[in-house]
């Protein structure tokens, strides 16, 4: 998929996220929107996958470590053909398999996440296992920045460096906000790149809401041989809905009907702009 098509799909991803949250009257809005471009690029361009055969041996593995942003995950899986788009309407509804966090009974989901700080260790295990099996599949994982407060992330980071896992690519959705406010006020993360470099990772920083930069960086992995790759993707929490952008209160805010309609219309207009541009 080319950059223009990816950008158009990212609008569809955001609309689907808002629709799910609006219908369910619940969800993690800000972080799903900040990650929408990354998730779209991964599932429509970067990951080797087969929606008709989700367990295909040759697939790249993906773990959504920031599992609360599952709306972005459900959106891209449905739009990529892992399950019917209509099913998105069941998100968080009684007996739906589209739970409020990843559920590996849904095609395309490898493991259940939701408790923060687990995804990197699991991804490290996958990457070690693939190397042991002499397979060339890659492992991608998306972490939140607030999530980096969990000590287990750093256990995983240490192991990734130690085992020289150049088949492992971790992306941090660096939107600078967590539920209580600025990540730096809650618990200082910076200097973040230096931390990861000192753990043996090869680090690049990008604008995580720029499709050009996302595709460019994700098509250049691994950055170095014998090192895991880390992408610090600087994003805007709530990206795509002006009223939500850069506001911690939209971590799991639900729009009212007026804001919902306005946001959906604006996203559609922006999409048309890209289509015609």
């Amino acid at each position, binding site marked *: 998929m080319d950059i223009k098509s990816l950008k158009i799909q990212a609008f569809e991803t955001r609309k689907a996220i808002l629709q799910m949250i609006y219908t369910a009257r619940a969800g993690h809005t800000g972080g799903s929107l900040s990650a929408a471009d990354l998730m779209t690029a991964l599932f429509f361009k970067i990951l080797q996958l087969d929606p008709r055969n989700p367990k295909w041996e040759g697939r790249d*593995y993906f773990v959504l470590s920031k599992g609360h942003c599952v709306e972005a995950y459900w959106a891209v899986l449905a739009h990529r053909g892992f399950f019917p788009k209509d099913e998105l309407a069941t998100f968080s509804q009684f007996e739906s398999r589209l739970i409020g966090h990843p559920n*590996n009974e849904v095609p395309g989901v*490898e*493991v*259940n*996440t*939701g*408790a923060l*700080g*687990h995804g*990197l*260790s*699991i*991804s*490290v*295990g*996958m*990457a*070690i*296992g*693939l190397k*042991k*099996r002499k*397979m060339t*599949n890659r492992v991608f994982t998306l972490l939140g920045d607030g999530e980096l407060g969990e*000590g*287990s992330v750093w*256990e*995983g980071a*240490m*192991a990734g460096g*130690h085992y020289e896992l150049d088949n492992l690519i971790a992306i941090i959705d660096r939107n600078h906000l967590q539920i209580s406010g600025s990540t730096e006020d809650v618990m200082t993360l910076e200097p973040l790149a230096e931390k990861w470099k000192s753990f043996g990772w090869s680090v690049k920083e990008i604008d995580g809401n720029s499709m050009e930069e996302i595709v460019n960086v994700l098509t250049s992995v691994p950055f170095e041989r014998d090192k895991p790759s880390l992408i610090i993707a600087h994003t805007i929490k709530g990206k795509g809905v002006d009223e939500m952008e850069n506001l911690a209160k939209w971590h799991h805010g639900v729009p009212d009907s007026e804001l919902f309609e306005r946001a959906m219309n604006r996203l559609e207009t922006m999409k048309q702009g890209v289509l015609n541009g």
Partner: protein
Amino acid sequence: MVDYRACREAYSTTILQIAKEDPSIIVVSSDARGSCGLSSYVETLPEQFVEVGIAEQNEIGIAAGLSVVGLKPYVCAPACFLTARSLEQIKVDVAYSHQNVKILGVSGGISYGALGASHHTLHDIAALRCFPNLDVILPSDAIQTIAVLKEVSKTKRATYIRIGREKVPVIYDPEKERDSYTYGKANTLVEGSDVTIIACGETVYHSREAARRLLEKGVSARVLDMATLKPLDNEAILKAAAETGRIVTVEEHSIYGGLGAAVSQVVGANNPVPVLNLGLPDEYLVTGTGLELYKHYGLDVQGIAQRVLSFLEDK
């Protein structure tokens, strides 16, 4: 002569044996190759070993990841850390995510008696029985440990196995190792009609000896080895309740939430007969070796026999 063997040695020898035959088996260790008796395994099968350092959370996560890509991880670490520090990883990454991870909690219970409460594992049955998709097994001797490992290696189920550290008496016939364990089924070690002693793990031997002593005093005690704590053998429990009318549970675990609680729940709901729970009290234990603590807290042969007698006198 009583034959003493350590379950810890039995499991490490068995893992090496089954891993030699199955290259997809990977042992994962958190700087525990010494304490878990894995030196020979690491020397023999270095490619089937992953060291994670002192990081139990990462250890379980990595094991889950290995399972996702088609390998069969066996996590080996001291039970006290594995089932507390990484409890959430066991819940989410392994059990909830349906991953085929075998979790071997070594030196469990009060194996590390004198090292203090930080090193005791008296909560594992209580905590782990609450996670759907996770079996919980406490072998009672070295022979059954071998049988359990061979049995679970054939399944894709997530399984927690608690193994003790010291040499303990052998209960089962080494020549009939296979007969020592059937998944989800209790073994009747002694037939009896006045009371049933249901035990698990290394208290089983003491329970059997207590039954022999009770017989000398005219009490016919049945003894069940309830090696599988989950799924529990409800049938054997209810048969015991119906046929012997009284049940005593014995375990190297807190009196809360373990075998005693599980048996009491089954009995209470179906056939409420009197049940006495023997285990470790809700307090941090005095200092001592495992055997000294067994004696102090009445889990040795004499303690069990005495308490069973008092329980029957209360009729």
